C-alpha cells in the first residue's frame, strides 16, 4: 500500500513512540460496526484514546497534526461528578481508512502489547477493502462491493467484548457475501 504522509519536522521519533505508548495504554484500535436502516452493516476502523489530562490531550493532538493525521476530539462532560468520576474526559478519535493506516504504520514499530495484533488486523481489513471497494454491476454502474466473509471474520476476531455484535449477526447482513 502506497502511503503519502508528510511528517512535520517538529515531530520526532520519541514523539511517535510516546504516542504508541499512549494508545497502547489508554487507547484502542478496533472497528465500529452498526446496522443501517436497510439492514446493511457498516464497519468503520478507528483508533481512539480517552484521557482526562488536558496536557496529554493537547500533546496527542499536536503529534497527530504533526504527522498530518486528522484527529477529532470531543469532551464528555460529567454532569454528575459524584456518581461516575471526578473529572471531565476527552475522547480523541481517528477514523477513515487512510488516516488510520497512516497512523498505524507509524506507531506499529513501537508497539509491544496485544494491540499490535489488533493493528495488523485493521491493516489487513483496510488493505482488503481498498482492493475490492468499488466494482461495476451488469449495467456498468459503479457499486460499492459487499464485505467478504473473510473481512467480517477479521472484524469479529478483535471485537471480543461481550456486547459486541456477534459474527453470525454480521454475516446475516445483506451487504455481506454469503
Amino acid at each position, binding site marked *: 500500500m502506497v502511503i503519502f504522509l508528510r511528517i512535520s519536522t517538529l515531530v520526532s*521519533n*520519541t*514523539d*511517535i*513512540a*510516546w*504516542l*504508541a*505508548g*499512549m494508545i*497502547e*495504554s*489508554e487507547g484502542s484500535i478496533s472497528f465500529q460496526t452498526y446496522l443501517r436502516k436497510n439492514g446493511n452493516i457498516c464497519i468503520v476502523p478507528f483508533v481512539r484514546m480517552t*484521557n482526562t*489530562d488536558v*496536557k*496529554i490531550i493537547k*500533546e496527542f493532538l499536536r503529534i497527530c497534526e504533526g504527522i498530518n493525521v486528522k484527529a477529532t476530539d470531543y469532551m464528555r462532560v460529567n454532569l454528575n461528578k459524584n456518581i461516575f468520576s471526578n473529572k471531565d474526559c476527552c475522547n480523541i478519535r481517528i477514523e477513515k481508512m487512510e488516516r488510520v493506516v497512516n497512523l498505524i504504520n507509524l506507531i506499529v514499530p*513501537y508497539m*509491544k*502489547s*496485544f*494491540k*499490535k495484533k489488533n493493528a495488523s488486523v485493521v491493516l489487513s481489513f483496510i488493505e482488503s477493502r481498498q482492493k475490492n471497494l468499488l466494482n461495476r454491476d451488469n449495467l456498468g454502474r459503479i457499486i460499492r462491493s459487499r464485505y467478504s466473509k473473510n473481512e467480517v471474520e477479521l472484524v469479529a476476531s478483535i471485537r471480543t467484548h461481550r456486547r459486541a455484535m456477534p459474527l453470525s449477526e454480521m454475516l446475516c447482513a445483506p451487504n455481506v457475501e454469503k
Partner: protein
Amino acid sequence: MVNDTDLAWLSAVIEAEGSISAQATTRKKDGYLVLTPIIRIANNDNGINDEMLRICNELNVKATAFVKKNGTTTTRIDGMLSVDLLLVHIQKYLRSSKVNNAEAMRKFIQLRRNKSPGKFRLNKFNREELELICSIRTHSSAKTLDEMMQYPNVDIDD
C-alpha cells in the same frame, strides 16, 4: 539496550496507567512515619509488562511485578535510588500533569539525600519535605499534612 524511543514509550505508559507518588505508612514498632517514593503501573497486558521490566533491568532500576487476584499485574518501583534513577531517564519525556509529581518527588529525594547520605532513615522529616509529598498525594483518603506533622520523626521546628 535502551534507546530514547523506549524511554518515551515507557513514560507514556506511566502517564497513562501509572502513578508517581509516595507511600506513607506508620511503622508499628515506634509509630514513626515512613515515606517511600514509588512508581507504580497496573496493567494486564503481558507485552507491556515484559517490556517495562526489560527497560527497568537495562537501566539497573529494581522493579517488582506481582499479580493480583483479579489477574491485573502491578509493576512497582520503590525506594529513593530506584525511583530517582528512573525519573532521571524518563522525566524529559513526561508531558502530563505527572511532570509536577516527578519534579516534586525528585526534589524530595534530593532534600533527603542532602541531609545525610546513606542514613535516610535516621533523619527526621521536615515541613518542606512533607509539603512536597502532600502536593502529590491528593486522594481524599491520603494522610493530610497536619496528620503527618504529628509523627514523632517529624521535625516541627525545622
